[in-house]
């Protein structure tokens, strides 16, 4: 399994042709406590870069863009009742949805963990 990261602060853990997608710990920290997660529909077709779901903190609603193209195979229904799981465990239990990846080449545009950490360092400066 490999995990990759986008400049929009999302992650995807790839196993075969299925990717598990979430927002990064940095993203949840910036948003603050979530009060609502609007998940995509199972079976929905996502295009890379389009709105996939919405996460809402007390302050504001933020779109989560599709990190890659594909069909949604599963969503994290636990988040409907406990959206703060994303805050507590953004890069594990707080995953948002799983996607059947339609174009693996899209993943080449993403960062590995080391490159993403570099990006965070730059943002910090």
């Amino acid at each position, binding site marked *: 399994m490999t995990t990759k990261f986008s400049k929009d602060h999302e992650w995807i853990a790839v196993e075969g042709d299925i990717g598990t997608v979430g927002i990064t710990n940095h993203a949840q920290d910036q948003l*603050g*406590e979530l*009060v*609502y997660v*609007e998940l995509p529909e199972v079976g929905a077709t996502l295009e890379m870069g389009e709105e996939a779901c*919405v996460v*809402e*903190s*007390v*302050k*504001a*609603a933020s779109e989560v863009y599709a990190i890659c193209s594909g069909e949604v195979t599963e969503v994290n229904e636990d988040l*409907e009742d406990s*959206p703060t799981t994303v805050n507590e465990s953004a890069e594990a239990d707080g995953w948002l949805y799983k996607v059947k990846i339609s174009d693996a080449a899209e993943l080449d545009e993403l960062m590995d963990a080391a490159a993403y950490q570099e990006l965070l360092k730059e943002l910090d400066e």
Partner: protein
Amino acid sequence: MTDSENQDLKSLALDAFHRAHGGKMVPFAGYEMPIQYPAGIIEEHKHTRASAGLFDVSHMGQLWLHGEGAVAAIETIVPGDIQSLAVGRSRYTMLTNASGGIIDDLIVTKWDNKLFIVVNAARKDVDLPIIAAAVEGKAELEIVEDRALLALQGPKAADVLSRHMADITEMPFMSAAKVDFDGIPCHITRSGYTGEDGYELSIPVKDAVAIATALVNHDEVLPIGLGARDTLRLEAGLCLYGNDLDETTSPIEADLRWSISKRRREAADFPGADRVTAELANQPSRKRVGLVPEGRAPARDGTVIHAPGGDGIGIVTSGGFGPSVEHPIAMGYVSIDMAEEGTKVELAVRKKMVPATVTKMPFHPQNYYRGS
């Protein structure tokens, strides 16, 4: 936000205090202000309802109107009854324009031979010329630049404050007093913007850090940012100028008719009285109401309100999640035939229509001090 925009922002007297307490500073109404502290908005909100929270509201405009003529002069620009206000009491009113819209909402406190007025930060530049013109030759306008404004809010506020100030626990809601805080002269009112018991303290700028520090050093008190200030006032059903009130909204549409006394209604001698009189007689075309959406999706300001399966009949002006009620809440304006409590409506939240119910406000019970 570019650096040049940042340079135009004013700093509060408590700027270093906020940063030292981990405040996340954001631009608001021309000032750099803390939106939250490390506790986070939800915890800050709940702490204020359970114990006490300290808010820095020094961005708001404080002013004095000195002289016997101040009462009559201010009544030419507000519909509130300032004449009947007793010395040592505060009243909520608003500046209205000639077409009955609200220029700003404000609190007026009566002292011997003078009035103390607190206006919204973002409206200071609009309000001051209007007030100056109204009082010219009748009273002296003094813009207060050397005082900070703190609010201590919550059920433990009176207990905490009484450790520093004498004789304040029996003050009624919306009353005022001149009291020393550990020897520092202050003007305080028993009022606030959270729905809780609490006080606002107008204090010398030079003593602001000492007073704020003394207050947050009590275990009962946490510093509270703008984020929780907004969720607290929304649960309390209180209006935010710029969202829920503006120059097109009348006091009657805004459901603030309680703030206009019989004498002022009958005299109808304030700006926009024609519209207010007509709306009192025939009801306005729209009205501010509370809304509770079904489910967990918050409906933010700007969300269009529809009749079920039908046309747009209004708009949400404030909306979000209520940490104490633990569900989404909103307020907005709907056409008058849809304004009755219990009316079912739909909110256009992104691609979905979310069912919602017109609901009595406040969403969370008010906890003002009405005497022991």
